[in-house]
């Protein structure tokens, strides 16, 4: 019988407290040995295309880690290497200390994988899908049935359990898929774009699920092109582009470190937007932009500039020009802006609301 894998050590202490994280704090201690996921110098080429160009990644146990990048950045390749499906051309990687190349059997006992495409059998019922995996994991007959039932319950699929998966909605399939990857109580779960193609409500369900797993101490590596998703769920984020990590940190750290502060204001009278824009551009020395509605004016603050001083000067000039403002303030960059700054690409797909 397959033993339930012990979670990697030290998961509770290693988890950063994102609520109190400030920009002055260092990233989550990466020195906790061994990291639930460790990758060093991963390289993978397909002909002339370089999918990974020396990727490094360390995920402390018990963390939800977002792997964020545009299409083709190499996210799926990383997941496939870490889950033993693909051999890297060079570099090394380990899961809870087990090397993915030298001990793939051990790694497979430690991980659960939910790939980009639902890995469930449409011609079987939901229950049978889970039973199949339970049997492959060599749970004894009755235990396998119990475990399959438990997971159906947990994922709100009890009633649909006897139906063929063919009749399931996209969200139900995704939940079943995640349930199947959790049958073996993995220490490390890979979720490769788990919400791509889901409606907003199903997306919310998957988010709740990830939070629940994290609360149980499971390490989750989540790839996504949705910034909002990474922002909401992750303790840490690695932004990857062209096959390497271009920045790592908590969402707050990334915003503070990479994105510049932004001043934003909205005049009461929409007719004064042009004037407001001129003032903001003049004070910040940066191009001012408007939101989609064409009413909210914003501009990046100068690097090293003092936000208070800029804000005061803008306010004073607005007052002189007689422009009443409905709202005004300085905020950190959004993750979208961080992403743009890091990758130089267009922002990835915006999450559906």
């Amino acid at each position: 019988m397959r033993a339930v894998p012990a979670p990697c050590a030290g998961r509770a202490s290693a988890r950063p407290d994102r609520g109190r994280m400030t920009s002055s704090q260092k990233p989550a201690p990466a020195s906790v040995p061994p990291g639930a996921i460790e990758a060093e110098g991963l390289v993978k080429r397909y002909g002339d295309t370089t999918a990974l160009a020396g990727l490094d990644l360390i995920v402390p146990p018990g963390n939800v880690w977002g792997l964020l990048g545009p299409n083709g950045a190499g996210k799926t390749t990383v997941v496939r290497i870490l889950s033993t499906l693909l051999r890297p051309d060079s570099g090394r990687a380990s899961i809870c200390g087990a090397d993915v190349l030298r001990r793939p059997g051990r790694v497979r006992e430690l991980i659960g994988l939910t790939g980009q495409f639902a890995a469930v059998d449409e011609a079987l019922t939901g229950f049978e899908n889970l039973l199949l995996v339970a049997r492959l994991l060599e749970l004894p007959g009755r235990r396998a049935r119990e475990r399959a039932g438990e997971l159906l319950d947990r994922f709100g699929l009890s009633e649909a359990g006897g139906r063929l998966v063919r009749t399931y909605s996209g969200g139900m399939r995704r939940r079943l898929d995640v349930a199947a990857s959790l049958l073996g109580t993995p220490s490390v779960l890979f979720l490769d774009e788990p919400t791509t193609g889901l409606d907003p409500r199903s997306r919310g369900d998957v988010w709740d699920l990830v939070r629940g797993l994290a609360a149980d101490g499971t390490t989750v590596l989540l790839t996504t092109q949705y910034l909002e998703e990474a922002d909401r769920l992750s303790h840490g984020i690695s932004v990857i582009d062209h096959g390497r990590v271009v920045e790592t940190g908590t969402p707050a750290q990334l915003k503070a470190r990479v994105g510049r502060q932004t001043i934003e204001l909205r005049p009461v009278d929409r007719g004064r937007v042009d004037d407001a824009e001129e003032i903001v551009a003049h004070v910040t020395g940066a191009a001012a932009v408007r939101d989609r509605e064409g009413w909210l004016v914003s501009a990046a603050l100068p690097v090293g500039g003092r936000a208070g001083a800029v804000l005061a000067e803008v306010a004073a000039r607005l007052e002189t020009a007689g422009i009443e403002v409905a709202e005004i303030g300085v905020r950190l960059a959004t993750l979208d802006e961080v992403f743009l700054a890091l990758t130089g690409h267009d922002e990835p797909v915006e999450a559906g609301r």
Partner: protein
Amino acid sequence: MNATRAARHGVTLGWRNIAKFRHTPDQLLDILLMPITFVVMFVFLFGNAVSGDWHAYLRFVIPGIAVQALMFAMLGGALALNADMREGIHDRFRSLPIARSAPLVGHILGDCLKYVLSVVLVFAFGAALGFRFGGGALAVAGAAGLLMAFALATCWIGVLIGVAARNAETVQALSLVLIFPLTFGSNVFVPAEKLPGWLQAWVRINPVSQVTDAVRALTLGLPAGGSVPASLLWSAGIAAVFAPAAVLLYRRRG
């Protein structure tokens, strides 16, 4: 990974394929309908023309249609394997701590059920129309053994196609390119003597002809001649070439 565990994983995945038939009998219908159609079509449409008497033709054609049914069952197996390899489910299996061979073993076990069912159905349908076994129980058992040996050999061709092809259309095309010359360019429907000379050369060496000859002789109680060892040799030869090739490609792809 020891052999017992690997076997257990393989059997579990075989169970999966059998559970699938249970839910989607239409999938099974595909394999079963084809031979019935062929029996009806050939016996009643061409029977009189070829043999002058459809009863005589029925006895002649049933063993060959059983062989042909195996080839179509192989196509079905190749399609199912191909679908698994392309879709996420194969990655799921590979990310589990199970034997690498298990998905393949599971497929072949599932296919075996289809092979047995399609052969039994052809003979049962033939019997309902008046086909009678003339060779005694031992000979019939021998015929069954030859058919299964041939099925297990050709299923590796199906595995190779299923693993190699990029999509279902390619599986279909490759399989049909293989199945048509093998089954129609054989003595399944028309005795070799009645074919044009240039075709006879191919028909006589065709493995499907050899197996058909042997099964025909054993089920009807006729002298089998060299066809029994010839069909066994063919089966062994096909397996010897295609099983390693299929496994090699499966390991590389999968």
